[in-house]
């Protein structure tokens, strides 16, 4: 198929991203800010120095996981909006297991900790899968409601049973044996990003090259045909939600063992929800998630820097992300905007005739 379609989708995503930048730039201008100044500051905050690039990678890592999680469920035709909650569940499980002094060698302890995060996130995702598969519960609602449950449950745990002494609601540090190794001695960047990249390739392989993966994509594209072909739909839906939740859970576990080193109440700054925009920009393709996560990670890192140094409003990046989600889903709207943009440009430069042909 499909090379052409893929290129077309990629272009559509790229145009959507540019359009989102333009619209938010216009918004900034209306609000009396200089868009180029803000974007320039964000870019230099994201790529301007070694530490800035490292920060971009750190911000991109959880986005890779949540983007992949969203894609995995959507390949089976499900909307998993519960990544935020699954990240929290994975994080708290990792913090609990990683905080135990088990006397294990580091690789085993790390593996165990990540597994705990994966299983916690996966079970939480599978819960919504079971509700959908066995009772027909709308997964948009159930996953979103489960987010509130997860956030409050983990908040309870770090405020009461698992709270470390001190004023802040957080757990004990994880044991040194459970911490993900750093990639270089001086930077904060941990091996989590390698794991994220590996996961992207694994998801691509699983969905594209295995029989189960094929079952999942068929279920997603035509549930009735899949049923006729003998695919066990219920199992596939539950499996897809489990794996989706598991990926988000590892993301949470990686953030705990690689960056924060402990579970702080409310640690995930919307990483789960940003996964929706990441997946949209990647046109639901696992490897493109790596690219789109870097873009959104850069926006986040740049905004963080901007927040520290100036008081420019940084919520513009959330506006950009939301616009990307909408534009990618609306190719016809993008076409319309594009042609009216051409017309405007044509009018401005006095080349009406050419513009009409667009």
């Amino acid at each position, binding site marked *: 198929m499909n090379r052409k379609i893929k290129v077309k989708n990629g272009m559509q995503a790229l145009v959507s991203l540019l359009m989102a930048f333009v619209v938010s730039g216009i918004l900034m201008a209306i609000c009396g800010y200089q868009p180029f100044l803000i974007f320039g500051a964000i870019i230099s905050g994201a790529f301007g120095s070694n530490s800035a690039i490292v920060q971009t990678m750190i911000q991109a890592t959880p986005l890779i996981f949540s983007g992949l999680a969203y894609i995995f469920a959507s390949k089976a035709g499900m909307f998993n909006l519960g990544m935020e909650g699954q990240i929290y569940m994975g994080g708290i499980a990792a913090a609990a297991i990683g905080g135990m002094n088990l006397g294990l060698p580091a690789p085993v302890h790390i593996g165990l900790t990540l597994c705990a995060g994966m299983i916690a996130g996966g079970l939480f995702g599978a819960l919504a899968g079971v*509700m959908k598969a066995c009772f027909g519960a709308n997964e948009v609602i159930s996953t979103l409601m489960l987010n509130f449950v997860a956030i*409050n449950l983990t908040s309870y745990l770090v405020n009461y049973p698992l709270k470390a002494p001190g004023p802040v609601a957080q757990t004990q540090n994880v044991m040194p044996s459970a911490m993900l190794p750093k990639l270089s001695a001086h930077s904060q960047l941990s091996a989590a990003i390698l794991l994220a990249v590996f996961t992207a390739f694994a998801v691509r392989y699983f969905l594209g090259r295995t029989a189960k993966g094929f079952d999942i994509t068929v279920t997603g594209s035509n549930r009735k045909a899949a049923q006729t072909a003998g695919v066990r739909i219920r199992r596939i839906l539950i499996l897809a939600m489990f794996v989706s939740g598991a990926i988000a859970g590892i993301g949470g576990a990686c953030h705990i063992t690689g960056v924060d080193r402990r579970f702080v109440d409310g640690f995930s700054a919307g990483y789960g929800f940003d996964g929706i925009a990441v997946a949209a920009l990647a046109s639901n393709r696992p490897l493109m998630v790596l690219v789109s996560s870097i873009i959104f990670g850069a926006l986040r890192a740049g905004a963080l820097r901007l927040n520290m140094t100036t*008081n420019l409003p940084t919520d513009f990046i959330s506006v950009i992300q939301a616009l990307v989600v909408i534009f990618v889903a609306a190719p016809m709207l993008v076409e319309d905007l594009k042609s009216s943009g051409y017309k405007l440009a044509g009018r401005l430069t006095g080349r009406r005739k050419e513009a009409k042909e667009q």
Partner: protein
Amino acid sequence: MNIETIWISTIRMSIPLTLAATGSIFCERAGIISLVLEGMMLSGAFAAVCGSYYTGSALAGVLCGILAGTLIGLLHGILSLRYKVNQVISGVGLNLLVTAVTTLSMQLLWGNRGNSPQVQGIPHFTGVLSGQSVMTFITLALTAGAWFVMMKTRYGLRLRLTGESPEAAQTLGLPVQKLKYSGVLVCGAFCGLAGAYLSLDHLNLFVREMTAGRGYIAYVVAIFGRYHPVGALLGALFFGFFDAFQISLQGKGLPPQLFVVLPYVVTILIITFAVKNIRQPDGLGKL
């Protein structure tokens, strides 16, 4: 915890749910998936505070809230109907957009990402009906009105037909697109009002993401009420009770996280176990 306070609190918590669920009924009966309720309510809540802040009048604030909700409804309608966007994605995308825009605007207008300054709120009765909000009665009247329009008028019949079978409506020569737009716009207006109630009735200020999932709960209330305005009112009271119960447990030394989740858990249980046999409009989500 006495029964009277819980009852008053139940009514208070059920008003925004009733309004939003009634809006959802108009939208879904017209065949458009209404997962955008959350964004409509949030925009309504924010615009209401803005309106009240700049004019000093709660009424102007409420009108601004209704307008903002209707605007989001218009966007949802344009995206779904004109540009054929998947209605779930359109809804979720707009919710994300409203969350981002309201937070951004708060920072721009008041230099604070967390909450707005206090503004003039909706008046409450004194005397016999002391403490009751004007909105309680407006909500009851609107529910009755919605029931009448939906079930007893020609417009309501046509709207329902459009949602059940757009092809049949088309064949009869009905203006299908216009009817669908009307459904989603009415939904926006109701949700905008619900949002205005949230921000202007008790707190009199806007807090970031103050709807806290109520839009999604209202979506479930509409289904639970069998897409009937009166059913929505009863369903909203049911959900409002759990919210009120949860609030009455606060400040008693118990960990608040454990019962704050009560309304969400009830929502999950209801959508999983209680609505299986409720039929959705046949043409829902189709174009």
